[in-house]
């Protein structure tokens, strides 16, 4: 005897056909291009329009391209340095806003959102003007030549860190800090033993955000990089102008892999301290 299927309840959206179709369409729209990008990085065809067969040639070619390698190294270097610095600055700012009341606090909170809402192109122009006006030296050896880009990246990514960490701290019971001091710990011990572990998921999330923002930034990097410095997004852009070759796909795939790796590491780090 065939069982009659029960009708979906009013809140069982996951059992409604139209909603499932919508979900599939959304996922397809989001991830199909990425999947195809990765797939075609293994395509044995120069023009890279039709699938010709599997090859790792273009990974080899990409790895042998010195300017691509340089761009890749630069991007990772900029990303790491700006992530570390903006995480520290952002966390300190978040702590200050969370802990203290001081005159001008609302103004500071407003100003904090500015680098987030300001159009990137404006920020790029402003930074360019700043570096030109201050006569920032341009002919520096690596990695000092990345300075302006790093500064630009920190400028737009630390507010993101501050906002994420601030949100995390909103749920912090201040009695925990008081209990720590009451039990004999000093300010620094309390910060290291109690506040920092609580803040950690926020720091990791904020740091990841800063890293992602830095890795794929094009506009601000374009304005702040000197004529000699190349980053990955800018290199890809210049390569694509002469046609989308599988090397671009291969290099992009590697970048995706690196990003996923960072995310996995970050989630691993977050796990033991997951408690609220």
């Amino acid at each position: 005897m065939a069982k009659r299927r029960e009708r979906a309840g009013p809140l069982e959206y996951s059992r409604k056909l139209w909603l499932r179709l919508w979900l599939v369409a959304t996922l397809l729209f989001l991830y199909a291009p990425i999947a195809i990008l990765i797939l075609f990085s293994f395509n044995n065809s120069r023009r890279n329009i039709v699938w010709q067969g599997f090859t790792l040639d273009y990974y080899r070619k990409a790895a042998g391209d010195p300017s691509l390698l340089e761009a890749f190294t630069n991007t990772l270097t900029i990303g790491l340095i700006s992530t570390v610095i903006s995480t520290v600055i952002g966390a300190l700012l978040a702590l200050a806003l969370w802990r203290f009341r001081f005159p001008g606090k609302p103004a500071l909170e407003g100003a904090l959102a500015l680098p987030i809402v300001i159009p990137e192109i404006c920020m790029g122009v402003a930074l360019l003007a700043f570096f030109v006006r201050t006569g920032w030296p341009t002919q520096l050896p690596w990695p000092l030549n990345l300075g302006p880009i790093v500064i630009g990246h920190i400028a737009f990514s630390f507010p993101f860190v501050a906002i994420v960490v601030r949100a995390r701290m909103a749920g912090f019971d201040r009695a925990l800090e008081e209990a720590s001091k009451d039990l004999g710990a000093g300010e620094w011990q309390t910060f290291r033993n109690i506040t920092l572990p609580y803040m950690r998921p926020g720091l990791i999330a904020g740091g990841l955000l800063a890293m992602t923002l830095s890795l794929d930034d094009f506009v601000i990097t374009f304005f702040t990089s000197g004529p000699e410095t190349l980053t990955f997004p800018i290199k890809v852009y210049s390569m694509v102008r002469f046609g989308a070759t599988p090397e671009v796909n291969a290099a992009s795939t590697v970048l995706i892999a690196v990003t996923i790796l960072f995310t996995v590491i970050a989630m691993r780090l977050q796990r033991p301290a997951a408690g609220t």
Partner: protein
Amino acid sequence: MSVLPSVQVEGLAKRFGQIVAVDRVSLAIDANEFFALLGPSGCGKTTLLRMLAGLELPSAGRILIDGEDMAGVVPNRRPVNMVFQSYAVFPHMTVADNVAYGLRVSGVPRAEIAPKVEAALAMVRLEGFDERRPEQLSGGQRQRVALARALIKRPKVLLLDEPLSALDKKLREEMQLELVRLQQEVGITFVIVTHDQDEALSMANRIAVMDHGRILQIAPPDELYEQPNCRMVADFIGTTNLFPARVLARADGGIRLEARGIGELHLPEDGQPGIEVGIAVRPEKVRISCDRPADGLIAVPGRIAQLAYFGDYSHVFVDAGADVRITCYRTNDRRRQATALAVGDACWVSWDPADCILLTE
């Protein structure tokens, strides 16, 4: 032999901007005393406790703990420990790490910590919970962790901020007994803040009743209940029938008074003729009867307005004239006794004049 008070507070005050949270409070708490700060919320009792812990700085006054002035002593250097209302158990540490924390940050060698943690957990009956995480514990267990964590430091004074308010009724009663047992066992001065009078009455050796930042009365529980020094205390501790009255004259080694709802009466007290006073009588001292009570008792006729049955006893509310309602507790010491009373019945309420509390403030 004079024993130094464990805590001595002199003219202590705390202002937050315009608001006076604690208003020139002075008190002394003896060593090994179980002392309660009792008052409605917002009366300044928690602020007072936090000043003892060093978490708030006094605006004026002095705090001496074990004879030492605490001015300028930071919380982590004070010989007191606190159990917070939210327990403040560190969420990212195990139970054992929580309890060990105070010793660890003070640089006690690791080898000495482990047995002490074991003993502290045994004291609060949490043996075997070492490796649990706070989110795996119930509210009562978290409270025990907070207690063990504070007691392991062997403070001179243990401060408890509304420690039982988050627990359900049964657990609360259990913890009350437990706290008294612990206090006797460890021999440390306990200062507890509570808004729950039952808690204060059943646990404390002495109670300070606070309101609007001031201390109204400091007394042992029975004295506080039977001999309150003002209307506010009489009203806050337990239930009270309060009659506004006026002193008529001094007579027969006492005073004659005219009380609203009772009429004229004579009390063996003293007072200036003409002053307005209050006469308070506790509901359990009031008897209810159908017949006119014997002479010598204060007796008022009335009508039963409401009955509330609680199993072991009943509350009987009697209307005795306009705007005069007298509450009376009746022990249900016989089966089917309470059924003898019904709303609307005419009755007499009476009590011994000696059970009247004269309140001049």
